[in-house]
């Protein structure tokens, strides 16, 4: 038999889970809107996944680099920094609620990591596609 208490507890649980997810959603949505404001079209998670795996040979060391070089193929698992060996916590917001929860961090890491991985900044279109992919993982 379900008591009122159980229902309340369950409700609270869902609510606690929903709050960080909701804030992630609004942060990501705001980013997407701003990318479109700067010229991007509609976004595709599928395109984002292709970009995620897209390799570019580094002018600096001659090795191919992609997002997976450090983040790995499975966004729900931890990655490993290619150089320092330091663990990189999973990027998937489903298993790591801190991910995609700060616009400032999204900006910071896109800037750094696009430059390191592809040798240039990402376009608004690319960022939107990538975010659309990452948020679904």
């Amino acid at each position, binding site marked *: 038999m379900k008591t009122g208490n159980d229902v309340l507890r369950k409700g609270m649980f869902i609510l606690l889970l929903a709050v960080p997810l909701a804030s992630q959603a609004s942060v990501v949505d705001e980013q997407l809107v701003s990318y479109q404001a700067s010229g991007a079209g509609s976004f595709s998670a599928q395109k984002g996944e292709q970009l995620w795996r897209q390799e570019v040979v580094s002018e600096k060391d001659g090795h191919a680099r992609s997002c997976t070089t450090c983040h790995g193929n499975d966004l729900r698992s931890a990655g490993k920094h290619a150089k*320092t060996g330091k663990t990189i916590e999973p990027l998937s917001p489903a298993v790591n609620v801190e991910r995609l929860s700060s616009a400032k961090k999204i900006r*910071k890491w896109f800037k750094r990591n696009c430059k*390191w991985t592809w040798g240039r900044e990402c376009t608004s279109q690319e960022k939107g596609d990538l975010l659309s992919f990452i948020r679904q993982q």
Partner: protein
Amino acid sequence: MDNRKSKTWSIVLTMGFTLGLVGISGMVLSDDDDYEDNDQWSQSRLDVAPVDNAFYKDECGSCHFPYQPGLLPARSWQRLMDGLEDHFAENAELEAADAEQLTIYLTENAADTSDYKRSRGISRSLAKNDAPLRISTTRYFKRKHHELPDRVVKDNPDVRSFSNCELCHTRAAQGSYNEHQVKIPGYADWDD
């Protein structure tokens, strides 16, 4: 009366002399910090001021060990912060206001403005205009680590680099680099 007076003087002088000796021997010992480590009195004293800036810990420590500002002189930190786009072959760019805030923290607490013993040691080991970016290239650091062969650090898969202070110095995060607190992964019995 005169006799008494000179006796008192000789006691005072002896005491003064003894205190002086203690003082001098303390200075001599503290000049080489590894002797000082054996001294109970100074054991509680930290080697470098610990990091007390949450923003620094978060921004820099999310990628690597947050090195205490007291491990390099201000001119090094300035040079390092001016080159974040190529930060040891990584891109570590920050928004201008954030970079500025961190530069202030680093330079104000740098080795050449600190009187913690390792900070003083590092500072003293550098030429006046020398602004190294790596702590491990300072003469002081090299002197302290010269006995370590490559297999123990560079070629040790669990250490890989001298930049990973905290992997061997178990209390590095607290600002303590005492050699008795060193535990090298894979070399449990290492003793130098």
